């Protein structure tokens, strides 16, 4: 399944500055693995050492937080829109 992934500014150093990148996979986990192949280093920023989504990272599948779907096992279809959003604004 071919999808588009929106990448926040703090992760664009891994995507050569791109804010949106293509990826493939039939679940969120597979999409992240594919992102890692294309942009080495990005998986560690998204997943902790137990392989779970880091607490300060939100991943949205077509606008829905995957934590309220099936988390990393959420199914992905062709053309789906995935967004990685930092859980906080980082401001003061």
């Amino acid at each position, binding site marked *: 399944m071919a999808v588009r992934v*929106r*990448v*926040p*500014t*703090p*992760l664009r*150093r891994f995507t050569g500055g791109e*804010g949106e990148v293509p990826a493939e996979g039939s679940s969120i986990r597979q999409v992240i693995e594919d992102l890692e192949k294309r942009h080495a280093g990005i998986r560690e*920023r998204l997943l*902790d050492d137990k392989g779970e989504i*880091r*607490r*300060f*990272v*939100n991943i949205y599948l077509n606008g829905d937080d995957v*934590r309220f779907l099936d988390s990393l096992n959420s199914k992905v279809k062709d053309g789906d829109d995935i*967004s990685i*959003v*930092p*859980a*906080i*604004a*980082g*401001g*003061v």
Partner: protein
Amino acid sequence: MSRKSAKNGADLVNREVVPTTRASSVLELIGNTPLLEITRLTRGLLRPGVRIFAKLEGFNPGGSVKDRPARKMLEVGLKSGDLRPGKTIIDSTSGNTGIALAMLGAVLGYPVELVMAANVSRERKKIIEAYGAKPIYSDPMKSSDGAIEKCREIIRDNPGKYFKPDQYNNEANSLAHFETTGPEIWQQTRGQVTHFIAGIGTSGTVMGTGRYLKSRNPEIRIIAVEPDDELHGLEGLKHMATAIVPGIYHENELDLKIPIGTEEAYEMVYALGQSEGVLVGQSSGAAMVAALKIARDLREGCIVTVFPDFGDKYLSTNLWIGWQEWRRERLAQVLSKWNASTNVTT
């Protein structure tokens, strides 16, 4: 961790540090926050001559340390005439400065507009609106730097309308801490402070307080705390290497900068709640982790750090994801230690 239960309550309060206050405006209630010694969490970890204190900035009327610079920036603006009737106060802030400006705008009678990334916590949005201020949302993908850019655009489109305190570049921000936070810490520790540790967001706290403390005793070490990575979950703190660097930030005035991980800061928040009875935000957790890292290498010292706010504004945020699991793991650790010691004695 063992906990002593209180006996009669008679000796629980040191009356000296509980001021009786009466005021005719919340403006007068800003500052003079208490200094709490962290004793339960640190039991057995520190050498006898080392103490850690936290300045509880959540006691400010707007609920955070940001009341101090917000008041000072508006005061300087009013004195210079840049802030005058007819002006609207605007700034890019995702949080505590916005709340402080909203509160002060209400008291002083000025409209307030605040630009923030759309993914700030629900509590913050509601608090800001409750004070009568107008929130304007920027792209959450661009974090706080996106809010800074959008705020610039709004002012450019209507330059005469606004007064922008500009907390990142306004020296009145640091000055507030030079005039209040620094002297309070000096007085509360009776000049015994040896290390001052604070997180960097705008850097106003660490710059202004540090500058004051160095003026009293140049030997005092000034230490800044920052997230260990550009992508982090420490609301209120900035990763200086990758962020837009505030104009008031002067790295040469720091003795040390400590990177702190989001997860360790979150766990410290849980630990502070359960051991000290202080529920704080994630930047306080990061400050406490840094204080412990400094403290464990010291033979003697009086470390003062800043807890910028309490934790109630973060209850709906990702800070609390996974915390039940953390609690279960900690309980399992405690039980296994207890079981081990039982085995030895039987």
